């Protein structure tokens, strides 16, 4: 039998579940808490399959010494792959216990059941429970995947709202984050960053930096890697702030303003490929071509807290604490970068501020490791500066998406091409990309050839480029631009947001050409029943269609997608007003996430994705000025604020399935499209370039 999800890679049952302490169950997951509530959902799954109370479960996550290797916690895959693995592991473990109890009771396992860990026979308690049986049931065995999982109809814990287990510490101001960790004898450190790969540190005015520190500090220098270390964080921070002006570098290159617009990509060399059948050379009689180009600039993860890492090198073993998304991939990258064997490195996850993808977390952990190796025996804590987070985290690449369709006389699409220009969305160290510090250390390794997330994993720039609509011929032309003005990598949804913005804008444009209502037009071209239900339900709760005629400054817009064409379905309506800038009035979303293990957590994620996407669409762009790597603070990188956020209604559609569909990234694309479509309708002119900032809107209206 094929083992589900990540269980195939980590089949040993004791990697997932153990019963060492009386009355308690320890579960272990490679998935890490990023503020999405994944640990709570894992507890629900284990409690359900083991038939025990949730309060008995302690969960351990993201530790290379203990937990299963589940790669990265990313791509809305935790429930769809990690959760189903946990579910089967617990079902298999439970079956082993029932088998053992059946042997002792000389009965059939089918006569037995479990209530809060106690074994019942035909509903009557026996002398046995998990913990009394544990010494004689070995979980040091591989899962078989043969144990029957609890049927959906018997679920009592999965599918019900459960309060997040990680939230109280964050609401009561406890030591919830890696930033709050204190190790005995810990030194604080800051890095004086190499401005760019290839820049050389010519001179450091150590005296000036020491004076600014006003407390004892020391320097760690290796090649072009420079750090300030000391006992007192205030002194170290002051030194690092001053060092920016007291370190002289040669060969400094900064991105130029002309590189900040996505259209810059069109002039760059690219690695090209076609996914699907080649584009037809001619247009058959009775058809015509419609084409439109959409752009989205580079955007930042812009975590609310800067990255942080801790490390200790003692007795030949390196231990690293990190809030990154994948402890095993980071261990591999650290081993390569630091020339250590992976077996002498332990990487442990500790919660951090929301990252939404590959931000500075891996690199801050690497900084701590580099410095710890050079201050042997002493734990080191590195906390990036805010300016450092903005200037050195990987950004989400700018994208140009050109959609071209052959239409029949009624403006129905018969042949669809999405042509994409983008940097890579895959800059993760686990995929072979360099850690930031690697280029500053002596003998920097060559830059690996750019790669992109393969379509089998949902694609990177191509993610969601293929519409779910019923169109006879569809293809993607992908131009991967290897050299980008900033290091680029994964941000929530990768290419899904720009692609869905493009294709759902295009669908609205086709509907307009066809003289049809946008929702009616979508329904006319989509047969997937789950997609139809999500579209219909969203239209219903949002009281679609908008009452105002186009061009009146107020309207609603619609957007739909199934994330990766295989995860959660979501449709969004946004109502807004535009004068010079956009004011969001209300938003609605109906989504089908399959089995929602913790429905309230799913809604929280869906809504968070909508608001974050609204911020991307209305405010965000990494701008360049020849002087810096881009924005350095929240003034130059504004995000949506409380007074700009609309009320939102979310409805989860019960699909009556026990298969979860990843939901954390499902609403960003549809929201972007809904806003674009609403703005275009409200002003009676099509907007195809993001962000829909005040400047952009004013410029477009002046053109008219």
């Amino acid at each position, binding site marked *: 039998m094929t083992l589900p999800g990540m269980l195939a890679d980590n089949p040993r049952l004791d990697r997932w579940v153990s019963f060492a302490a009386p009355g308690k169950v320890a579960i272990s997951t490679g998935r890490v808490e990023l503020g999405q509530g994944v640990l709570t959902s894992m507890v629900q799954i284990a409690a359900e399959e083991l038939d025990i109370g949730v309060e008995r479960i302690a969960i351990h996550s993201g530790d290379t010494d203990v937990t299963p290797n589940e790669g990265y916690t990313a791509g809305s895959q935790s429930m769809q792959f990690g959760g189903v693995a946990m579910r089967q592991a617990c079902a298999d473990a439970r079956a082993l216990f029932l088998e053992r109890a059946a042997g002792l009771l000389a009965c059939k396992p089918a006569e037995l059941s479990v209530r809060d860990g106690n074994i019942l026979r035909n509903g009557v308690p026996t002398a046995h429970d998990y913990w009394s049986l544990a010494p004689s049931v070995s979980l040091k065995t591989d899962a078989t995947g043969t144990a029957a999982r609890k049927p959906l109809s018997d679920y009592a814990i999965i599918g019900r709202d459960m309060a997040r287990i990680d939230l109280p510490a964050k609401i009561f*101001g406890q030591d919830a984050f890696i930033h709050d960790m204190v190790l005995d004898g810990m030194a604080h450190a800051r890095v004086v960053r190499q401005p760019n790969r290839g820049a050389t540190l010519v001179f450091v005015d150590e005296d000036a930096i020491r004076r600014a520190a006003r407390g004892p500090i020391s320097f760690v220098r290796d090649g072009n890697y420079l750090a300030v270390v000391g006992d007192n964080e205030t002194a170290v921070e002051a030194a690092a702030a001053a060092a920016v002006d007291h370190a002289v570098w040669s060969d400094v290159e900064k991105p130029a303003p002309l590189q900040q617009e996505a259209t810059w990509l069109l002039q760059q060399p690219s690695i090209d490929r076609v996914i699907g059948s080649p584009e037809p050379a001619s247009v058959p009689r009775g058809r015509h071509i419609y084409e439109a180009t959409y752009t989205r600039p580079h955007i930042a993860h812009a975590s*609310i807290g800067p990255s942080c890492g801790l490390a200790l090198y003692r007795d030949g073993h390196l231990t690293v604490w990190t809030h990154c998304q994948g402890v095993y991939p980071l261990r591999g990258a650290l081993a390569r970068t630091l020339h250590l064997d992976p077996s002498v490195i332990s990487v442990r996850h500790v919660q951090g501020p929301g990252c939404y993808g590959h931000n500075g977390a891996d690199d801050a952990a690497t900084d701590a490791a580099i410095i710890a190796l050079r201050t042997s025996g002493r734990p080191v804590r590195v906390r990036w500066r805010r300016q450092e987070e903005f200037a050195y985290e990987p950004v989400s690449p700018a994208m140009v998406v050109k959609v071209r369709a052959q239409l029949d006389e009624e403006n129905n699409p018969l042949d669809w091409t999405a042509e994409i220009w983008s940097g890579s969305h895959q800059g993760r160290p686990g995929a072979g990309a360099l850690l930031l510090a690697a280029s500053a250390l002596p003998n920097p390794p060559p830059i690996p050839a750019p790669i992109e997330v393969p379509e089998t994993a949902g694609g990177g720039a191509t993610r969601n480029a293929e519409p779910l609509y019923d169109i006879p011929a569809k293809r993607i032309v992908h131009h991967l631009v290897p050299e980008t003005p900033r290091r680029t990598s994964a941000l929530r949804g990768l290419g899904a947001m720009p692609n869905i913005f493009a294709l759902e804008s295009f669908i609205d444009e086709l509907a307009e050409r066809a003289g049809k209502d946008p929702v009616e037009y979508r329904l006319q071209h989509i047969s997937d029943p789950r997609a139809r239900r999500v579209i219909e339900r969203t239209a219903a709760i949002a009281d679609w269609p908008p009452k105002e005629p186009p061009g009146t400054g107020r309207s609603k817009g619609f957007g739909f997608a199934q994330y990766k064409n295989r995860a959660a379905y979501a449709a969004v309506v946004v109502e807004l007003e535009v004068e010079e800038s956009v004011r969001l009035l209300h938003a609605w979303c109906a989504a089908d996430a399959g089995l929602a293990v913790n429905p309230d957590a799913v809604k929280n994620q869906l809504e968070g994705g909508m608001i974050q996407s609204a911020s991307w669409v209305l405010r965000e762009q990494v701008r360049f000025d020849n002087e810096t790597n881009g924005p350095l603070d929240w003034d130059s990188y504004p995000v949506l604020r409380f007074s700009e*956020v609309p009320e939102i209604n979310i409805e989860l559609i019960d699909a009556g399935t026990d298969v979860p569909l990843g939901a954390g990234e499902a609403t960003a694309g549809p929201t972007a499209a809904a806003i674009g479509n609403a703005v275009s309708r409200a002003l009676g002119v099509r907007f195809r370039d993001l962000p829909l900032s005040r400047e952009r809107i004013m410029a477009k209206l002046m053109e008219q």
Partner: protein
Amino acid sequence: MAEPIAFTVNGRAVSVATHEETPLLDVLRNELKLFGTRFGCGLEQCGCCLVLIDGKPEKSCTRQLGTVAGRNVTTVEGLGTPEKPHVLQQAFLEEQAGQCGYCLSGILIAAKALLDRNPSPSRAEIAVALDDNLCRCGTHNRIMHAVAKAAARLRERAPA
């Protein structure tokens, strides 16, 4: 060593012998081991480090220690505990008003300051009061609902 600077934190008298220009946030976290107040930007832009100084919300990341001598500082730890939560914390738990939660300490402080001066704020007034606090996860609505819920509870409790 610098002259000790005395002030009150969450009702407790403290005295810290460190440079008077040390940011209050560093003193709270590194000297007093109160880690609830978070570092977000160090630029007074995000609100993660908000505390109450004599009841007024102030950013602590650039606030010099010397300026709080003799004053009352309240941090998120001073609002309530899991055993005895502040009405705001209770409402935040009930509404599950958080995702990563890094911004929540500052937001709870801003909300406390709001409710102290306006017991029945509208949604718009809550939003304005929280506008100096950034939330990157998109939990704004849950947070605003939780603040409104806490306000309603406080009004019920208050004598007519």
